[in-house]
């Protein structure tokens, strides 16, 4: 137990000297990194313009309130598009993610050394790139519109769904698989009767969870031209129509809260 002598008395300490020094060094490095970073941000900021930030904020807020409710009738179509991008995107990505997950899980993959790394590479590259960057790419390939957003969401979700799904497959109870194998079942029968029932709850949970995330992401895809309500947001921002912007933001907020509520309910019902 670390102690120090003070006036002939032994006083308890939380840490001994070396540990204190290491911790102090780590904190120092952290502070140094932060100061350096803040300095760099500050260098790239025109502080002279920041004097009237309060006024600008109040000005924008004043223009944004009240929201232009009549604009709502033009928002129904983008809302429908956003919902479709998220829902169909989730469905497509699940169709693609299931085979990839089976190829990536170490207990179902046909080949640990050739197929599994390829499947893992697909998962990693799909996950590492943000859906907006995927959207940028698909907008430049298939042109602006809902289809580009749909592709972006589908491709981006593959990695997420496949990763969670293959982890679920790796955690299954092998005994059930063995029991099915012992009946003389074929490979696909083992999958359908031995593995699939075990991962079904996880699968449903992942689907709903990803759908929730996709609703959030598809609301902003329009900023790069990939359809949905983000397109209206970008248009309103570009024309500095703040009452429309505030209405769209309210709609997005409502959509996000609603989708989170739905997904929480459905997941609660499954689990």
């Amino acid at each position, binding site marked *: 137990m670390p102690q120090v002598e003070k006036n002939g008395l032994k006083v308890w300490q939380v840490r001994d000297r070396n540990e204190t020094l290491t911790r102090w060094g780590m904190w120092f490095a952290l502070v140094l990194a932060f100061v350096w*970073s803040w300095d760099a941000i500050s260098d*790239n900021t025109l502080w002279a313009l920041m004097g009237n930030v309060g006024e600008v904020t109040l000005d*924008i807020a004043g223009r944004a309130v009240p929201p232009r409710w009549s604009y709502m009738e033009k928002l129904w179509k983008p809302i429908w598009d956003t919902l479709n991008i998220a829902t169909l995107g989730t*469905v497509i990505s699940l169709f693609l993610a299931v085979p990839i997950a089976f190829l990536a899980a170490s207990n179902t993959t046909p080949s640990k050394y050739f197929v599994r790394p390829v499947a893992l590479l697909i998962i990693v590259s799909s996950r*590492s790139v943000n859906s907006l960057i995927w959207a940028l*790419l698909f907008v*430049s*390939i*298939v042109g602006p519109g809902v289809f580009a957003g749909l592709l972006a969401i589908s491709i981006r979700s593959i990695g997420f769904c496949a990763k969670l799904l293959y982890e679920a497959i790796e955690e299954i109870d092998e005994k059930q698989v063995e029991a099915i194998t012992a009946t003389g079942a074929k490979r696909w029968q083992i999958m359908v009767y031995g593995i699939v029932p075990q991962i079904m709850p996880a699968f449903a949970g992942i689907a709903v969870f990803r759908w929730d995330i996709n609703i*959030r992401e598809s609301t902003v895809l329009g900023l790069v031209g990939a359809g949905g309500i983000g397109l209206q947001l970008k248009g309103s921002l570009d024309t500095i129509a703040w009452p429309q912007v505030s209405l769209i933001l309210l709609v997005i907020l409502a959509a996000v809260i609603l989708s989170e509520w739905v997904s929480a309910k459905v997941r609660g019902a499954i689990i």
Partner: protein
Amino acid sequence: MSVALENKIGTAWKRNPLIASSILRWMTSAIIVVYVFLAIFGTKSISSSLVGLGLVEEGFRFGTFGSVDKFFSGIDVNWSRIQRGLARGQEFVGGFLNPDFTSRWDHIVQGMYESVVMTIASTVVGIAVSIPIALGAARNIAPLPVYLACRFIITVSRALNELIVAIILVAILGFGPLAGFLTLSFATIGFLAKLLAEEIEDMNKSQAEAVQATGATWLQRINFGVQPQVMPRLIGLSMYRLDINFRESAVLGLVGAGGIGATLNTAFDRYEFGTVAAILLIIISTVMVLEYLSGFIRTRIK
């Protein structure tokens, strides 16, 4: 199979259906089919096929609702545009085989520098702000009014997409990394405070009580009773958030909030797929290094 034979050998076993009630099962399937049809093809396809069959006239209206076409729009796929675009897709794939690091190297370095700086600063500030909020949002140590206020902050932060916050902040503060830094700090609060608060709520109560029994003040109770219990989780979450913040900083540039995203957007706009590939490769490798690092640190703490 005949009924007599079935009686002899007994009915074959069938898997239980996912939805037990058959009416509910059929209705769910029907709703799904109708939805998928409307989402993909839209109502326009119905009206145009009705026109094609000669059942209704061109441009017919459905009572007071007006044209049917605009009820539900499907996905418009412009095949000729895609055909032209496929060449670009090939260029993009070609760009990955032959990434061009050199021609925009200065911009890439500047963008990466901004992204890294934003990531570090926002993670530090975000964590510093989330810790008190997490303490307030844990029901077992905070009084109800504080709890509700802190939960409200967390909910707002989680509900607002980073990009939307960034747009608003860019409108207020102007272009540059300051808006990105504030956006990421704000987003960190929702993530970290929520998970940390849940960790605090799950902690072992007796340790905090033991510290309290020695006559410790509130601050000492938090510092010696609570903090040691949640520290491993806090460090793990912080590392994870550093990782997320870097990924997010890569897209904030799209709306003018600084970072590598601006460089990437410019490269896409100019169809410079070699540069795009170079930037994406840098982002992916940085994310993988960060992910490996955070995984390493998280396993060492445990």
